[in-house]
């Protein structure tokens, strides 16, 4: 079997065999095939090879494949979103619980609209300054001041939700780590100060 010298047409024969050509190209190949025995032979060979490979392939069970596929994307997306929502809120509730514990130890802080933090009650364990919380406090509007003190367990669910919402707007939280303190102890030992 010899090759037709018309390389352009020979190159298009597989697409022609599959009916993928249109317009001028389809007409060009049809004309050449009609006039050229070598092109007809090659076209026949393409059909033979296609048939041989197709017949040799096992039939696949479409229904079984479809059963193995994931369900449509929309419910999956919804599931993902809901999972993200839960994980986000778990952290918020955990943070709120931590705050309640801290508050329960007797600390009372008041965030003022001007960004200053006023210590309302004393704590022997925690000390912080206005500078520590100024950036977060500055991000709050004047009417968004949060005041809480004493037993936060007295707060209602609505109050806690409000608190969580406002926590979202805080860029940082006040440090609850105790600051290092250099003890100054004056002991008068017989007129000498140690």
């Amino acid at each position: 079997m010899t090759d037709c010298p018309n390389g352009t047409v020979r190159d298009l024969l597989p697409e022609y065999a599959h009916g993928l050509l249109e317009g001028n190209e389809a007409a060009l190949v049809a004309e050449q095939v009609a006039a050229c025995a070598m092109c007809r032979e090659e076209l026949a060979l393409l059909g033979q090879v296609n048939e041989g490979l197709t017949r040799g392939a096992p039939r696949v069970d479409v229904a079984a494949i479809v059963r193995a596929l994931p369900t449509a994307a929309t419910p999956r997306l919804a599931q993902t979103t809901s999972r993200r929502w839960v994980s986000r809120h778990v952290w918020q509730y955990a943070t709120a619980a931590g705050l309640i514990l801290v508050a329960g130890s007797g600390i009372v802080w008041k965030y003022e609209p001007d960004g200053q933090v006023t210590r309302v009650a004393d704590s022997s364990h925690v000390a912080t300054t206005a500078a520590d919380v100024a950036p977060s406090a500055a991000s709050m509007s004047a009417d968004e001041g949060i005041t809480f003190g004493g037993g936060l367990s007295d707060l209602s669910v609505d109050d806690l939700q409000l608190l969580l919402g406002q926590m979202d707007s805080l860029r940082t939280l006040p440090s609850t780590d105790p600051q290092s303190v250099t003890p100054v102890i004056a002991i008068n030992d017989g007129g000498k100060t140690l």
Partner: protein
Amino acid sequence: MSAGNRDVDVQLDVTLIARWQRGDQRAASELVERHAQALARFAAAQGVREGVEELVQDTFVRAFNSLESFRAESSLRTWLFTILKRLMLDRQRADRRAKSQVELDEGHAVQEFNALDGLVADEAMQRVRQAVDRLSPLQREVFTLRVTEGMAYTEIARVVGSTEGACRVHYHNAMRAVKEYLSDD
């Protein structure tokens, strides 16, 4: 080259994907129906004798799991063939490891190959299969995609990880080799 019919096919796939993403599971069936047999044909033509259906199924599962990231830069069919080819390579590697462990001899493999070739009843068809089997793996991939799917060289190049020009050369060399083998009778 005119791509009219091809574009219609590509557009239909895009529409079916969108329907599936909106929750229409029947669109998934249509997509599988459109492409599964072509994938099986390709795998079998590359010499895969067992687990063709499993390979095709894995291809679809992988594709559907990442359809959200499918950008339609290539056609769905090209993308599916690319996934299938990767899975076939993975399996070949695993088979090679397994074979080296059990030390299967060459004769055993050839015997198994010939016996299964008998599934193609027609003698002429068997000759065609043998002619294709004698091609190099890359020639066989390019030739199969071109002959059985009418795939364009650009798409074939994506599937086999080569260039359009190289694929054209591989196709014509493969065609010459097949003709020579069949005219030896």
